[in-house]
């Protein structure tokens, strides 16, 4: 299982032809207390680099950009009642959705952890 990153501060973890998507530790820290995540609908189609949802903290709101093109096969329903999961475990229990990739080669174009860290510094 490989995890890659985007310059929009999202991570994508590969399992077969599906990626799990969330926001990074860095992004969660920058946002502060997350209060709401607007999740995509299951079955909806995402287009790489296009907005697929928003994430709200007390004082700000950010768009979520799709790291890959594909269909949403699962969403993290726990975030509806407990958006704080994004702060507590952004790279784990705070995941946002799972996307079945339409074009698996897109995953390879994402940033490696080392390259992503350079952006954050």
């Amino acid at each position, binding site marked *: 299982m490989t995890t890659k990153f985007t310059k929009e501060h999202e991570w994508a973890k590969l399992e077969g032809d599906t990626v799990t998507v969330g926001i990074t530790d860095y992004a969660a820290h920058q946002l502060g*207390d997350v*209060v*709401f995540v607007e999740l995509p609908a299951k079955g909806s189609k995402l287009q790489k680099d296009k907005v697929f949802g928003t994430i*709200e903290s*007390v*004082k700000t709101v950010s768009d979520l950009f799709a790291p890959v093109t594909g269909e949403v096969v699962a969403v993290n329903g726990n975030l509806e009642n*407990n*958006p*704080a999961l994004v702060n507590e475990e952004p790279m784990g229990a705070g995941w946002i959705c799972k996307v079945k990739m339409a074009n698996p080669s897109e995953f390879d174009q994402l940033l490696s952890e080392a390259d992503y860290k350079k952006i954050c510094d």
Partner: protein
Amino acid sequence: MAEPLIFDLNKDGRRGYALPALDVPALDPADHIPSRFLRQELPLPSLSELEVVRHFTRLSRLNHSVDIGFYPLGSCTMKYNPKVNENMARLPGFAHIHPQQPEETVQGALEMLKTLEDQLAEVTGMDAMTLQPAAGAHGEMTGLLIMKAYHKKQGNHKTKIMIPDSGHGTNPASCSMVGYEVINVKSNDRGSIDIEDLKAKLSPDVAGLMITNPSTLGLFDENIGELASLIHSVDGLLYYDGANLNAIMGWTRPGDMGFDIVHLNLHKTFSTPHGGGGPGAGPVGVKKHLEAFLPNPRVVFDGKKYKLQTKCRESVGPVLGSVGNFLVLVRAFAYIMVNGSEGLKNSSAYAVLNANYMMARLKKTYHLPYDRFCKHEFVLSGKSLAQYGVKTLDVAKRLLDFGFHAPTIYFPMIVEESMMFEPTETESKGTLDCFMEAMEMIAREAAENPDNLKNAPLKTPVRRLDEATAARKPDINYFQRPE
């Protein structure tokens, strides 16, 4: 002890107000209204008159207000609200007239409106005004509809509006509501609009440029003449956000600077009370070539009588269900009468004096990102306190312990850890001195005892509130509290 909610003071059967006894024969409503439309439950509280008076009086004492102390909120113009204006707004001839009364019974009201329109047109250098918009953001929307109507008539294909990165949040929100795409223009190192950036982004599809002058940094943009020519060169319109008019009344006028459309905030510049967040009034002024597009009804005078004219073919249409927030307008009218031309000019003069007096002293303690004379407000950065782990938010909260309101914080967004101060002309030197001492004491405290700031406020009715839980599990209705 916190004040209980009005619902917790309920006692079934108690009455707070007695109506006159019914003096006509009564019917059974059930015989006249189908039963599914008859009210079943009505979950309202029941209290005595004294309980109601005490409840709200106690609550009022938990507020900071202009009447209690200094309120240096930048861009909000928290000047003194003269008491006599409240009396004027309560004159029966203004407060107790129905909006649908025959015109001949409201001639005084219409005369007041027309006179105020003319006065505001004079102050702003515009040719015609509407008093209808109920607030600044509403005025903005109205102004942009006028802009759109103009371009439509001209046959112009316009899709974009330019806004500087220091603009108010309502500017882009209003633009996108009327369907314009927002182009952000950068500020230069003097805090003015970066003309090169504007030129690079200017194109024939630009409908207009929307700015405040002085800007939200409190700085006057000397290049305004050139900006006007540039925008007009593509048949764009120059839009003036009047939030900062208190800096320039009687010194210069938006109309003379080349602006085509202006909106004002009477609750800022013309001292109508903020009321805890409203009501306000957001009149819009335009140059002659845009007059036909103003919302209706328009107040007109035919030499004998005042009338409300609704048949204006090119008008954008009404933006409110009435002529405007009438009693707010009455207060502004009274304010202008007392001040006259000289008083308004002095108001701006002393507002600018007070701001510069504060800036000259506070820049020794806090970082001043743009070191030049300001107008009625100025922006400092709290970033020098970061070394102690202290943020601008902490400074703001600590000020509350000293009995002052905080400045506007984290706006404008182009200054890191920003604090925006607007003292207004109605504050005395003594008040400003006390406030600045507090600011200096807080800076010392940041170095010596930063926890005092991080824990502040300590002396207010409540301390820092858990905003995250408030937003995650909204408790916004007494009848449906989250578990």
